[in-house]
């Protein structure tokens, strides 16, 4: 035991020193003057607002990614004692003194710094030399774009950190597979792989590509395990189950956990409430919950209700009517029924109140005890302020002529009979006798005479309709679509017999008491669904770019400009590293195909273990680059240079691997090898030099003269800001 320990102490110490040095350099490069500039830099303006929401516990919805990344940034704010009081409205705005800039930027910086030793470890675990590993780490260390991105309150560096962690822990796991499966170490790395994958996905959806890559490699390895006939069936099954649990089930659970914490933290209502369903809003403190608190749960005949459309596109709105009628003749010459308009109105209004009436009775009040409305009941809907009944008939709707017009019936004595009976169809019912419930029930109104369905067409009416949204009776469609579904939002039992009293009652706030809860899974699935479907304006941006611009660094992003001097921060990579990494990927691909074809003809240039190592390195590094890069060609959103950084990191890892391979296998003589080494050294020196030249743009700490700036503009497509005095 002791002998075993003594001998490798030397080795371990050596590795550690390398690692320690790399970590220290990483920390130095990322943490140096972290609180500078004390102003909002680029996308900090975007993430900052969410941090403030976390600090104030206000619910928000951000379609750009799952909440884990935002939460990590907010953790920095929490540790720094940020109170959330800062108006994030402008890039370049000075931070006020209550914003703990240093601690807000700390977590991304730490992840960026730790990526350096991780790069080292990954190359080591892939089975390449210390020299190659150190090279990889140094390249990550001096890459300007990575430095810039990790020194600010942005998420890419954290994403890269977890991507690398996932790959590293999978490698450690698969290397321990050979010696000691099911040892604690084996379990630790396996579980860590799953957790890291799910953290990566939790930060940005693009993390899913790395996850899929790791899953793919794991599946291939598992297939080999199945084919390994020295293992018993039971053991193979255990292997498979362990992998499935750690790489599939666990990540899902961790992902759910992020949302659980997210929803636990954000319990107050806020500006994004409107996007969510009424039930969700009611589960938040303040906002709708304050209004609906204490409403009766079951809708009865005689209830006064507001009806909200579930689809909420283009804006959330409530079924509405008002005194105005449809114009006799539309602009295009078509005629209307000239009856009272029914629209969907995006603001709270007393005209949104409707009374649920039993067609067989005249009363508009609730019996004692209340008689609840059930699925399949036929109802009339009375508009509260005008006491007219919701009606639809075979008249073309104003803007959707294929559908029926919906109106509040006005009797003109022109042999157009009222058709105001609606059958209630509760979409999310559990049984056919379900009661119509406030907020929870999603209902459709099916017209009895024509079997049309009350639907929000979403088209804004012209001026005569006050630009409110058109509501129609949809005849043709019988499938399910959210725009045909409504739910009761505000609700009270009607008590007043007289119209005047009823109007007063309609104006008064709702009250009475009951509470309702939404389960976590329901809230999670709604939130996740909305996040995936919420549409952000895909606006053009001055610094947006296309994936083709990224490979050779044909574009940059100006992040920040000093308000007075010409000091500025750019997202600008080290051109030497970008170009050579791309070349290395190309070289790898060509060499790989060449070897593959030769092996097929039974010519083995590489020994078997070298070949497997070479393949695995390619699968993870070149594969990591491909999965993090190629999908962007299919995406339709606005893309920026920083989207390339995860792919770039994998590409950088491949670079020393290819170099070492060339030197070991393609350089035939000692002389060639020495020459090649000299070349590599020269190349690395130039990379360092370039990195140093671009340093002022990376840190933004030194104002440069216009001539210096012009000298730095190596490509015409780079946009470097030069002040005109």
């Amino acid at each position, binding site marked *: 035991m002791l002998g075993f320990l003594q001998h490798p102490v030397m080795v371990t110490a050596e590795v550690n020193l390398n690692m320690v040095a790399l970590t220290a350099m990483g920390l130095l490069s990322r943490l140096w003057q972290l609180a500078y500039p004390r102003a909002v830099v680029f996308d900090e303006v975007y993430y900052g607002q969410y941090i403030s929401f976390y600090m104030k516990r206000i619910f928000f919805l951000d379609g750009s990614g799952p909440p884990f990344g935002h939460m990590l940034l907010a953790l920095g704010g929490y540790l720094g004692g940020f109170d959330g009081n800062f108006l994030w409205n402008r890039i370049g705005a000075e931070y006020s003194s209550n914003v703990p800039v240093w601690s807000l930027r700390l977590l991304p910086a730490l992840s960026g710094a730790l990526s350096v030793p991780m790069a080292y470890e990954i190359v080591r675990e892939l089975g390449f030399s210390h020299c190659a590993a150190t090279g990889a780490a140094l390249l990550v260390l001096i890459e300007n774009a990575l430095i810039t991105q990790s020194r600010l309150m942005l998420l890419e560096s954290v994403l890269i950190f977890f991507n690398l962690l996932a790959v590293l822990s999978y490698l450690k796991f698969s290397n321990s597979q050979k010696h000691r499966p099911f040892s604690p170490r084996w379990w630790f790395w396996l579980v860590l792989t799953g957790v890291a994958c799910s953290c990566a996905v939790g930060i940005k959806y693009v993390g899913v590509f790395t996850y899929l890559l790791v899953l793919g490699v794991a599946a291939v390895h598992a*297939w080999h395990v*199945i*084919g390994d*006939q020295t293992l*018993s*069936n*039971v053991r*193979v*099954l255990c292997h498979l189950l362990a992998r499935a649990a750690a790489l599939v089930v666990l990540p899902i659970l961790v992902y759910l956990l992020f949302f659980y914490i997210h929803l636990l933290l954000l319990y107050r209502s806020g500006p994004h409430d409107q996007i969510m369903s009424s039930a969700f809003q009611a589960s938040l403190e303040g906002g709708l919950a304050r209004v609906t608190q204490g409403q009766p749960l079951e809708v009865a005949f005689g209830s006064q209700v507001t009806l909200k459309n579930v*689809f909420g*596109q*283009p804006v959330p709105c409530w079924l509405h009517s008002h005194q105005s009628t449809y114009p006799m003749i539309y602009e295009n010459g078509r005629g209307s029924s000239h009856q009272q308009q029914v629209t969907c109105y995006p603001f709270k209004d007393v005209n949104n109140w409707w009374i649920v009436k039993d067609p067989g009775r005249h009363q508009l009040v609730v019996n004692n005890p209340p008689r609840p409305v059930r699925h399949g009941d036929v109802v009339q809907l009375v508009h509260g302020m005008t006491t007219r009944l919701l009606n639809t008939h075979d008249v073309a709707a104003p*803007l959707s002529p294929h559908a029926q017009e919906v109106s509040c019936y006005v009797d003109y004595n022109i042999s157009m009979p009222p058709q105001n009976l609606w059958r209630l169809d509760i979409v999310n019912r559990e049984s056919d006798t379900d009661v119509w419930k406030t907020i929870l029930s999603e209902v459709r109104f099916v017209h009895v005479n024509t079997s049309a369905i009350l639907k*929000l*067409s*979403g*088209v804004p009416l012209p001026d005569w309709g006050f630009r409110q949204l058109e509501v129609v009776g949809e005849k*043709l*469609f*019988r*499938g*399910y*679509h959210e*725009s045909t579904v409504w739910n009761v939002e505000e609700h009270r039992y009607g008590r007043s017999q007289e119209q005047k009293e009823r109007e007063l009652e309609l104006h008064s706030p709702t009250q009475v008491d009951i509470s309702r809860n939404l389960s976590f899974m329901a809230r999670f699935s709604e939130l996740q669904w909305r996040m995936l479907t919420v549409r952000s*304006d895909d*606006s*053009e*941006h*001055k610094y947006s770019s296309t994936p083709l611009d990224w490979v050779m660094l044909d574009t940059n992003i100006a992040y920040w400009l000093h308000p007075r001097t010409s000091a500025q921060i750019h997202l600008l990579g080290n051109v030497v590293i970008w170009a050579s990494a791309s070349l290395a990927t190309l070289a790898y691909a060509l060499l790989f195909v060449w070897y593959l*074809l030769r092996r*097929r*003809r*039974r010519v083995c240039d590489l020994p078997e273990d070298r070949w497997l190592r070479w393949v695995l390195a390619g699968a993870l590094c070149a594969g990591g680059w491909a999965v993090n890069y190629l999908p962007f060609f*299919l995406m*339709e959103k606005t893309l920026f240079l920083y989207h390339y950084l995860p792919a770039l990191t994998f590409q950088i890892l491949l670079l020393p691997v290819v170099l070492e391979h060339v030197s070991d296998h393609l350089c035939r003589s000692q002389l060639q090898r020495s020459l090649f080494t000299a070349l590599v050294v020269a190349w690395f020196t130039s990379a360092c030099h370039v990195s140093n030249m671009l340093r002022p743009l990376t840190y933004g700490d030194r104002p440069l003269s216009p001539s210096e700036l012009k000298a730095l503009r190596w490509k015409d497509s780079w946009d470097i800001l030069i002040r005109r005095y």
Partner: protein
Amino acid sequence: MLCATSRLLAARAASALPAHPRGRGPAPRSRRRELHFPGHPELPPGDLLAGRFAGPSVSTGRRAILRRGRMPPAAGGGLAGSELRPRRGRCGSQAARAAGRDVATETATARSPKRPAPLSSRRFEAAGRWALLALVTLTSFATRFHRLDQPPHICWDETHFGKMGSYYINRTFFFDVHPPLGKMLIGLAGYLSGYDGTFLFQKPGDNYEHHSYMGMRGFCAFLGSMLIPLAYLTVLELSRSLPAALLTAALLTFDTGCLTLSQYILLDPILMFFIMAAMLSMVKYNSCANRPFSAPWWFWLSLTGVNLAGALGVKFVGLFIILQVGWNTLSDLWHLFGDLSLSMVTLGKHLTARILCLIVLPLALYIATYAVHFMVLNKSGPGDGFFSSAFQARLSGNNLHNASIPEHLAYGSMITVKNLRMAIGYLHSHRHFYPEGVGARQQQVTTYLHKDYNNLWIIKKHNSNSADPLDPSHPVEFVRHGDIIRLEHKETSRNLHSHYHEAPLTRKHYQVTGYGINGSGDSNDFWRIEVINRKFGNRIKVLRSRIRLIHLVTGCVLGSSGKVLPKWGWEQLEVTCTPYLKETLSSIWNVEDHINPKLPNISLEVLQPSFPEIMLESHLVMIRGNNGLKPKDNEFTSKPWHWPINFQGLRFSGVNDTDFRVYLLGNPVIWWLNLLSIALYILSASIFAVAVQRGAHLPVKVEGLSQVLLRGGGQLLFGWMMHYFPFFLMGRVLYFHHYFPAMLFSSMLTGLLWDTLLRLCAWSLASYPLARCVHVLGILTLLLGTAYSFYLFHPLAYGMVGPLAQDPQSPMAGLRWLESWDF
């Protein structure tokens, strides 16, 4: 499956498998452990099972097979699935029924006592095969041509494709998002059947009256009927099993969806025909692989290429079958490459043959269809505006055809300005204001694809509105690069104007309006005109010069965002002034029409673009057109996940209970069986794959079946995936009928799978007559079941009149199994 696997175990135990591949002696006992399936680790050791199942009931013939099973099948030793394949089967349909050649030859002797095959019976069998094929073809034609003339009005997309057929007959140029071959064939069919191209095809429901439409429908129905024999032959080739092929044919014949889609003037039957033909010829060619460079080999290979060109020439969806064939070819080449007995020269020949037949030939044919397309359509028509000025010069009747217009732009010229990006159109304005809340309430400026008087602008000097520039006493002054100009809209006399208001749709750009009265406005009307390709000196050439208009005050560039304005803008495209000075096509314009009586007209013959340029341009326009088919908000669109579950159909004709209604909906029995089969297939194939990977040696018969399942079925499953999953990535509007190519593959898979499973089941039952009985009964049940479901649902395809299905009086009463079906 369970019965099959336990049977497997039994066989294994009974035949005491060898310990190592070469050995023939009895296996050491310890090796037994490997034989268990991972899925059933707790199964009792083989002896017991063997005693129970493989007891006295095993016939001598079966025993012989089992004993032969000691020989490791050639494929058994491989590691990965891909290396498993015994490479080549036999060529042609006369091959033995076993899948792999190796297996077949090895079992030939074992089989002979059971199936004596004298010459006469073989001939009889062959005749039976032909009769069966004829029967299948006949049924398919009968079902497709039955009531083909009903309804005698335009159904659904006939309004488009019929119209396009007419365009070919009339030789007028039009634009469509699909490649031309399909519509050309429709046009040809119409032409040959005596249709004169005079029917307008205005909207669905219009009566054909005296116009001859049966030729076009008949052509589509013919190709639609051919699908079934093609599928039949494909499955026969893949599985070597008549029942499987028969089942497939029944599934497709009795599917109401395929039937409906084949009966109208649509592109889909043509597309599906080419896809299936390509698949069949690929499969045929695969089985010729043991006789490379023979006549049938060349025939099927080049036929594959021809069909690929056909598929791509009808719709771009044909790309998926190309990918499938490509993948198949790659793996084929990969296996050849691994065969050390082949020299590099032979390999080179193989490679060249494939490049010739699968790349060069299809490409040539595809280009040829375009050549014909452009040759036939030589008259100006509704598609002109989608194309560039140079393109239009080709079309007779277009004002650019043999045009003679003044060459250089001068002040006072009346011009139209066209955006260089494909399918954006002309700079346009009209007497309507931007609505309130959308920037300044001034006159709209848009781009418009059609030719119109409102596209005319007059180019003026920025500072003088003085004398009429057309006054002959004024000297002609040419516009030069860098000049500051004003563009006055001819009809409304307002100036092209921009200012610091956000554009209606692209919020980060500035709004462009028409401003001023009778040409007098303000300094926001000034634009600097710049030529981008300044090889013609400083003057601005009509058609040739690519110009940019830069707003003098804000420094922004006039461009079109390509977004469609809402109703108030008449759904024309938005024009903005973009502050980002990136050089994109959408901010570059050229001058098209040019009227200036003071300048001499010159002929512009020289402009005609070359054929490659036309090809490229029409493809760009098609791609843009496809991308432009985006679903709008609040529109019910079909989602890919709806399709395989037959969630919702498409209304081909008729709405009310008095109408003649045709509803495109798959036969639910068949579609749901297909869905189940895909799941079953994945399950059974993975059980086999894992078994092989665990080193289990399958009995010969099972081995053969598993090869059919893994190889033949694998190809079909791949085809299904290739024709289905890409739709999830597409942003354009999708329709139910997009699923039908995938449905063909899925049905073939179903036929193959059930036959194989029934054979496995039958095999695991002991005695031969009983086994045969099970197999025959199973297949018969499936055949009759599908036929009966067709009897139930046939009114969907052949048309129904009467109340809707929810009414008990309806012919379809009780058949509305899903609420989303609206027939």
